[in-house]
């Protein structure tokens, strides 16, 4: 199919493009950004004046809940949610049932996702079998089956010996290890940041120390093993400072943050709002400021949705018993735009955090609009307001702290492989 997107403001962070022009697409590839090539006859023209045309979003953390948790969400529902949010590539986590620790499971998942013809799915393989933190998985086999990297999701890896060896083994093959730093003992039983709100509400606390102690181990082991490490969903200002220092020493460490943590803090828990029961916990306002500073100076490379659909019953429980997590696929873009507006951040800089930067972490040759690039695009109206309502969300999960709030920025078209897969 030949597609032309006309008169939009084309923002391509990687190539430094920010201009009102057209994008011509043929056979799943970008043919031209600029004047429509002479003789190019489009099968379809999209009028994009007033809209932003950017590379499709790349999300580093989404739980699709298949296999095993179809009562929370299905591949079908979540892939529809992804493209409705302008996401054209996503990393899904291995915490399914069964866990993504066998090549057959990974192949099956990739196959099923491919058949839906929506976003591209890049499975994160389990670092240890069953995510139990004991035996290593067959990482090389899993890589051949389609895993992009290896991690523990939110499952603990209490043995520093296993962690060190997992990093050594992964680095043998040049695989990167994705870790969310949290010391299992210090965080044990905790559900909220160890601060004023947890004290007032009597919620078992998770200290910042549980993040920084684990970070310190990981940084030291990264130096020792030379493993490439991606740190997932950093939550504290102090953790951000440690990562900044480690990167200054030249360690091959990258880092992301969940989009909710750019905006929210412990204060948002209010009267036990279980939609604010997140992992890692929402921390103090000073942490949020530290995270925002880390995003601006590049310590934190990318922003992910940390999408976690949870069924309604599992949230209708006392805060600590309620299942953690929030949906984010359809909120990632508007929440990043909100951050950019509030902090006066240029649009290309903000969009880089959800396009070119995560693609760089994944070593993907996508999320840019060079001639010949994969035609994965997101076309959105930056002005349009919409209210986050359960009925508006395509995701099977309706759990988000932003429920009922009005956000700005609505995806109008999502293009994957040169095909329009979503029209809003």
């Amino acid at each position, binding site marked *: 199919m030949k597609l032309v997107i006309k008169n939009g403001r084309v923002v391509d962070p990687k190539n430094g493009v920010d201009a009102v022009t057209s994008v011509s697409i043929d056979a799943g590839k970008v043919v031209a950004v600029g004047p429509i090539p002479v003789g190019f006859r489009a099968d379809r023209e999209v009028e994009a004046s007033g809209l932003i045309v950017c590379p499709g979003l790349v999300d580093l953390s989404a739980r699709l809940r298949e296999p095993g948790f179809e009562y929370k969400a299905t591949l079908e529902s979540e892939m529809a949610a992804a493209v409705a949010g302008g996401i054209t590539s996503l990393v899904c986590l291995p915490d399914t049932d069964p866990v993504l620790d066998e090549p057959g499971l990974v192949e099956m998942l990739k196959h099923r996702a491919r058949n839906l013809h929506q976003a591209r799915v890049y499975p994160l393989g389990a670092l240890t079998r069953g995510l139990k933190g004991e035996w290593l998985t067959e990482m090389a086999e899993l890589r051949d089956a389609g895993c992009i990297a290896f991690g523990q999701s939110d499952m603990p890896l209490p043995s520093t010996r296993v962690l060190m060896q997992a990093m050594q083994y992964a680095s043998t093959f040049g695989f990167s290890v994705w870790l969310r730093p949290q010391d299992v003992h210090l965080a044990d039983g905790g559900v909220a940041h160890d601060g004023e709100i947890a*004290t007032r509400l009597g919620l078992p606390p998770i200290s910042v120390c549980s993040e920084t102690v684990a970070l310190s181990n990981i940084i030291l082991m990264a130096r020792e093993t030379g493993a490439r490490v991606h740190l997932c969903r950093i939550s504290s200002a102090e953790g951000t400072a440690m990562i900044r220092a480690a990167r200054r020493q030249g360690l091959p460490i990258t880092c992301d943050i969940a989009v909710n943590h750019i905006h929210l803090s412990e204060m948002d828990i209010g009267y036990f709002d279980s939609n604010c029961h997140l992992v890692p916990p929402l921390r103090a306002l000073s942490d949020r400021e530290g995270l925002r500073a880390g995003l601006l100076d590049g310590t934190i490379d990318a922003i992910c949705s940390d999408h976690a659909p949870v069924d309604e019953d599992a949230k209708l429980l*006392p805060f600590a018993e309620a299942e953690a997590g929030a949906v984010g696929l359809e909120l990632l873009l508007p929440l990043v735009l909100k951050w950019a507006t509030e902090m006066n951040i240029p649009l290309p800089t903000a969009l880089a955090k959800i396009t070119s930067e995560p693609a760089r972490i994944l070593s993907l040759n996508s999320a840019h609009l060079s001639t010949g690039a994969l035609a994965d695009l997101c076309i959105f109206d930056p002005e349009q307001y919409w209210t986050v309502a359960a009925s508006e969300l395509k995701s099977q999960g309706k759990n988000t702290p932003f429920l009922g709030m009005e956000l700005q920025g609505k995806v109008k078209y999502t293009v994957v492989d040169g095909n329009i897969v979503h029209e809003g």
Partner: protein
Amino acid sequence: MSSNPQLSTNGQLQHLLTTEGLPAPILLNILDTAESFVGVTERDVKKVPLLRGKSIFNLFFEPSTRTRTTFEIAAKRLSADVVNLNIAASSQSKGETLLDTVNNLSAMHADMFVVRHAQSGAAHLIARHVRPEIHVINAGDGRHAHPTQGLLDVFTIRRYKPDFRALRVAIVGDILHSRVARSQIHALTTLGVPEVRVIAPKTLLPAKVERLGVHVYHNMAKGLKDVDVLMMLRLQNERMLSARLPSTEEYFKYYGLTQEKLSLARQDAIVLHPGPMNRGVEIDSTVADGGQSVILPQVTFGIAVRMAVMSILAGN
């Protein structure tokens, strides 16, 4: 942020979930109403017909004898029908969720739920989901709140020390895990007590506790100096297992209330304890049974305070 879930749109008490965030006039109204019920509990015929025909369900998701009994007595003295449900042992083990249980009981035309649950926020959750004509009283949720206990403590204090604005109060012990301490602190600060102290080792204090408006002490001798009221907290044995304390003996030596330590407070200081007491752990028997102890009056006043809360809620 939603509005105060305890108050109705016209500012009246709809539920009693915590002492935090309630205006002082509402707290004082409860104390004054309780004062009128003290007389009832001392009469031969200990019953008033205020809640006749009302059904009160005691929902105890966590075992408790004392608190449940005092709520039951209070409800009966108001002539209400009382149903006691020990849910830990019934439907929860069959997989029924908290809200399922509550909805089923609502369908039986309950007027009021008295809820005890091991998780902080359970009473808030129930209050948010019951029909608007049903009132919820929190009888203790996790580490969060135990408002009727906090209120009966300030009621007891007022009986002996009528001017809240002239008091120095110390709360001693396991603040970290204590819903009682949190409810005491908020009630005391709301009623204008100028100085509330907490005294405990660092392992038993929650983060940023000073943000609740208290002064932190780790040393009993310093913390008890010139104090008018001492509120002791129960120490659970789990604290040793979780490595927060080495032994009950060392705890008693440094934080247990003995006559000797009590003498550091003001001469006319009173001693409270929410019970059940661990004699020889947080409090010495000579103090518990001594002239400055008001621990038994607390129990008596507890019934009047709970009657007050129930009758005020039923009238709103």
